[in-house]
């Protein structure tokens, strides 16, 4: 079977869920090989990758890979593409994953497809574009297909793989060492899931006001991530990295709760492919209702606390 490279996304050695989704998808296309880039590799990581079907694990755990921005990961993958001739390379369609994919495409003279939600036989990728309004099927025409897949597009399923380790030493070029990460600042540390990976997202809009604790409490009662509309991040009520929408993050969770969000096109472009959408808004004419599966017309400051109580009661 053809080898499929999967770039592992991890934070401090902890593997992100999207990697397990990519391994699951890779198994339907060939034999998955996980590529570990940066420090933090452990027996736990090995067990996790094998559990989800990695036949091979390429380990490049030099600190330089994480200390310099993006370029080292593209060099690592390019060297593996050169030496192993995989049938395809899968990465997560995150901001960094796409940057790696773009640089890798140039290095290997290969086509690249981003924001895919599925890959069928023959590496035909499915992409929702224009905020989910149009579904496109496309295929890489030159080189090794490089496909970036959105988190939450495949249900991860465990199936044991051999997990054979292979240490990879990459001699990074000077060009790959051009942009150095000197400090990582954690502004909002919480136990909440990452926004684009979360199964449930609770977002607040202008109607919430500057105090976002009501949204955070609802999110926590559901084990959800917190999102925000542009009105909120523009006002500085919540940091921009939590913005859902055309100029922020695109999310496709199982459940999206929009509280106090009118649902301008700009916002809908980032969330309307969510499976189930629940709306709380006092304006019955707001455009968000066009995409609601369920909604309450009312004051979110009354409805949401009651909802939190009900959820807590039923746990």
């Amino acid at each position, binding site marked *: 079977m053809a080898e499929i490279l999967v770039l592992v996304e991890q934070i401090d050695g902890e593997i992100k869920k999207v990697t397990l989704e990519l391994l699951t998808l890779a198994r339907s296309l060939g034999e998955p090989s996980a590529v570990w880039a940066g420090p933090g590799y452990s027996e736990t990581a090995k067990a996790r990758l094998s559990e989800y079907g990695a036949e091979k694990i390429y380990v490049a755990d030099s600190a330089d890979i994480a200390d310099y921005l993006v370029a080292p990961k593209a060099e690592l993958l390019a060297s593996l593409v050169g030496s192993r001739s995989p049938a395809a390379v899968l990465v997560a369609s995150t901001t960094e994953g796409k940057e790696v994919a773009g640089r890798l495409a140039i290095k290997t003279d290969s086509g690249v497809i981003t924001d895919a939600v599925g890959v069928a036989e023959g590496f035909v990728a499915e992409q929702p574009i224009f905020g989910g309004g149009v579904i496109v099927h496309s295929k890489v025409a030159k080189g090794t297909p490089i496909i970036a897949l959105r988190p939450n597009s495949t249900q991860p399923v465990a199936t044991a793989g051999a997990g054979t380790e292979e240490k990879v030493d990459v001699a990074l070029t000077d060009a790959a060492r051009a942009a150095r990460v*000197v400090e990582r*600042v954690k502004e909002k540390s919480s136990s909440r899931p990452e926004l684009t990976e979360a199964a449930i997202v609770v977002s607040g809009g202008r109607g919430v006001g500057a105090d976002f604790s009501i949204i955070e409490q609802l999110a926590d009662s559901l084990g959800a991530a917190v999102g925000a509309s542009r009105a909120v991040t523009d006002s500085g009520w919540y940091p921009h990295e939590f913005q859902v929408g055309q100029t922020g993050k695109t999310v496709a969770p199982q459940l999206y709760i929009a509280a106090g969000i009118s649902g301008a096109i700009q916002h809908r472009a980032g969330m309307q492919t969510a499976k189930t959408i629940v709306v709380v808004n006092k304006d019955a004419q707001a455009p968000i209702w066009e995409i609601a599966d369920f909604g309450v017309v009312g004051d979110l400051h009354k409805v949401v606390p009651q909802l939190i109580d009900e959820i807590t009661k039923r746990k």
Partner: protein
Amino acid sequence: MNIVVCVKQVPDTATERKLRSDDSTLDRSANGVINELCEYAVEDALKLKEAYGGEVTVLTMGPDQATDAIRKALAMGADKAVHLSDEALHGSDALSTSYALSQALKKIGFDVVILGSESTDARTGMLAAMLAERLGVPQLTLASKIEVDGSAISIHRQTDYGYDKVEATLPAVVSVVEKPDPFKPRYPSFKGIMAAKKKPIEKLGIADAEIDPAQIGLAAAWSVVSDFTTAPPRGKGVVVNDEGDGGTKAAEFLVSKKFI
């Protein structure tokens, strides 16, 4: 400092955006506007000029009507513009576009290239990284803050948890994210709009920028669209008015869908 800011004209998100039925490329007949994040790039370019001196050149690739995006950037305060335009560029994908722009940038020369982190039409978010790769200069992307000190440049790169501080040496490619007030793009003044009409726009064809025609356009694309369809509309949902039990009803819905 020689600052080049790349801007893109995109279809207005408020209009219905389509692909062309003949060649599956973007239908540009819709009302074109400057890409939102490009306005942030222009703002940051102007701030760099104000702080460190130099000149801001706008670079755009696109058909004739992309001049509107250029005029907007000039009205905001950029000094001059280069419009890379050639029939042969039609249908170029991200690989071709990054190649063509990198050739134009080599011709223009730069200390810093600034871009928006993604466009609202293609949304690949790859262009800045690809330009850094092609030009062999540092990639400083997703910047919420830019600082320059002599030939040293550093940014705050937006992450899921906050930001990374990233350092490099000029020349470099920078992409920027959206920011809250007071860092929003300035509105062009009436004076700015009048002045923009007199600012020079240099037209660049592919031969001028030494662009290899075999690397651009639809025929050179590294990926091909096999088909596309309009997504089916979402079904009509259930809406209730809050009569003191809205939260309970919402909880009941979540239970019925097994979220609780």
